[in-house]
């Protein structure tokens, strides 16, 4: 295929999409693409928030690989690097400050828009999906001037689902018109309940989830708009589109809100769809896969040689994919600015079994996701497989001790 597009949606829970759950009506456009998609039913993120998951999505690696994370390590290979080197035009459009140029994510893109110079409103503290689409559309029309345009890799990222969950009335009306809040009231709910991680009032938690759902509906309309831009410029037929999210969001499933340093399914399960315009029958892949598999897939789609430093494997062709266990890691971001690497947490999943280890507390958890998909029943002391899984995760714990503070490897 000539072009590859990676569409990432911040904080989109897998179970918010109808094609992944019984929840209805929020993502009718994305659902309508299923006939042309491979749907991965068990895709996992490498971490519960942007900084921990994007090393997987864009560098096929794990968050704590190079010591205390301070932006993108020069040691990592960003997907744009091998692509640009191969003569593929690389373009990025997003509005997530954790992925901004200042932190090094602008390496090797022909076009890199991170919105950091634009002014934003506190109630929508990012450039909205609609505006991202406009910018992408302008760039695409200028790039695809004639038939002989250079193949491109386009990455775009929508922020609109991310808190503070202050949707426009128009979308509230579409999804849940009985929400009777002004934008100021929604914003105070964010300030007084979400920011404080206050889950004491189930009604407020439920209200946050309802506002979140409205945002999901809104983003579905941006995805639809994006597809029609591609069709108008006539590049849809020549582009494979990978759709995923960086992580989910919590609504008191495990005592919290938003997306902190936890490794449970509401944060780690992600939707992953690969849209192929020539496909006419949907396909479902139930293998356990990780977002580290995305960069090798992109490399494969462009027909390039595999990149040695990428830890993942190409998801395509499906038959060649070898299922392995998946890992994730994170640190506490809330107790100190820049994150506290001494409060680190790891997970490993294999088949339906998942172990989670909090290093500073030396505490282990284990869940059988087949019997206990919501991860409420810790079987670490009773499972015969506990030891084996722990041993697989242990070598990854505190790898960051091998690195000094200035990003050099300790002798």
């Amino acid at each position, binding site marked *: 295929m000539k072009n590859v597009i990676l569409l990432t949606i911040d904080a989109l829970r897998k179970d918010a999409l109808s094609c992944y759950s019984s929840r209805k009506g929020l993502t009718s456009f994305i659902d309508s693409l299923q006939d042309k998609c491979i749907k991965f039913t068990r895709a996992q993120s490498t971490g519960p928030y942007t900084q921990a998951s994007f090393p997987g999505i864009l560098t096929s690696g794990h968050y704590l690989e190079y010591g205390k994370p301070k932006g993108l390590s*020069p040691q990592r290979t960003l997907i744009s690097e091998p692509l640009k080197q191969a003569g593929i035009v690389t373009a990025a459009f997003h509005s997530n400050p954790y992925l901004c140029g200042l932190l090094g994510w602008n390496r090797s893109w022909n*076009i890199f828009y991170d919105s950091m110079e634009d002014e934003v409103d506190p109630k929508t503290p990012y450039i909205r999906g609609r505006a991202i689409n406009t910018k992408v559309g302008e760039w695409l029309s200028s790039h695809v001037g004639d038939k002989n345009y250079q193949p491109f890799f386009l990455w775009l990222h929508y922020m609109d689902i*991310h*808190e*503070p969950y202050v949707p426009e009335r128009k979308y509230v009306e579409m999804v849940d018109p009985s929400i009777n809040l002004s934008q100021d009231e929604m914003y105070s709910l964010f300030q007084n309940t*979400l920011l404080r991680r206050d889950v004491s009032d189930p009604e407020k938690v439920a209200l946050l989830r309802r506002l979140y759902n409205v945002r999901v509906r809104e983003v579905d309309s941006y995805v639809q708009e994006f597809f029609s831009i591609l069709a108008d410029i006539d590049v849809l037929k020549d582009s494979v589109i990978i759709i995923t999210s960086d992580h989910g969001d919590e609504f008191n499933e495990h005592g919290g809100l938003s997306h902190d340093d936890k490794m449970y399914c509401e944060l780690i399960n992600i939707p992953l769809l690969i849209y192929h315009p020539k496909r006419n029958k949907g396909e479902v892949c139930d293998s356990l896969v990780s977002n580290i598999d995305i960069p090798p897939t992109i490399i494969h789609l462009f027909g390039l040689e595999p990149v040695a430093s990428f830890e993942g494997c190409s998801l395509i062709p499906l038959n060649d994919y070898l299922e392995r266990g998946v890992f994730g890691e994170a640190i506490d971001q809330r107790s100190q600015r820049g994150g506290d690497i001494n409060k680190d947490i790891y997970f490993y999943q294999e088949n339906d079994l998942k172990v989670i280890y909090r290093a500073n507390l030396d505490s282990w958890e284990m869940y059988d996701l087949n019997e206990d998909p919501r991860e409420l029943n810790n079987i670490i002391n009773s499972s015969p497989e506990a030891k084996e899984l722990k041993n697989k995760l242990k070598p990854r714990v505190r790898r960051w001790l091998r690195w000094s503070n200035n990003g050099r490897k300790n002798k």
Partner: protein
Amino acid sequence: MTDKEERYAELVNKSKEVIREAFKQFKTSDLAITWTGGKDSTLTLWIIRRVCQEDGIKVPKVMTIDEYDSFEEIHDFINRYAKEWNLDLEWCRNDDVVRAAGGKLNARVEVRDLNERNQAELKRIGFKGEAFPFEAESYVGNHLMKTVVFNMYVERHNVKGIFQGLRRDEQAARAQDDYFEKKEASDLIPEHVRIKPILHFTERDVWNTYQVYKIPYCILYEQGYRSLGAKSTSAIAQPGVPAWEQDLEHIAERAGRRQDKEQMMDRLRKLGYM
């Protein structure tokens, strides 16, 4: 010419084309040049001056912004070459803000102490506080001490086209810039065209061009600064290592500057982090 000289002659020639196009589109008296004393705007000015010498044109007027919190070394550099190159230079400053701050950096500035124009500017950028600290590179400070001063200069001189030393690789968000960028008139901003002759240079190209053409630069770059902004918020990237000997390809150029970091922190706070 060596290969290296040839490569940089080519980059400079591209800039000259842009500059000549600007002189074709605008009267010299409608043009102006922004000059910060930094490496990019000094290179831009140097190339414009070359074109003027070659074509027998007067060098357009030059403006430089005094953000109050500035390096003496930059002042000295600007004054020295303004004289040597016989430039029509104007120092511009937002004196109203300096006055309201009592001339002290980090002093608390009450919004009600500012004049109408500055108050209107704060409103335009959505600042709703009663006061802010006097810093050149905070979000508010940057707007009042730089953006507003720039817009007022354009307005005062009825400038139609203004040269700037921006580079495409310097800041991610500028990746889409073009050599000529028309700014439509809007609230408090007069219509003008921004002309960016060195847009295609990388930081490495800039330093190599300085070397090939022996262009003068501010001494701070020798001490290890890579990017110069306000004095109290610019940091030496590598002490004692001249800018051109540093790892330009892997370490962000503006990492020592605070304005971008402030902007990022502000966004993160608004998203509920920090």
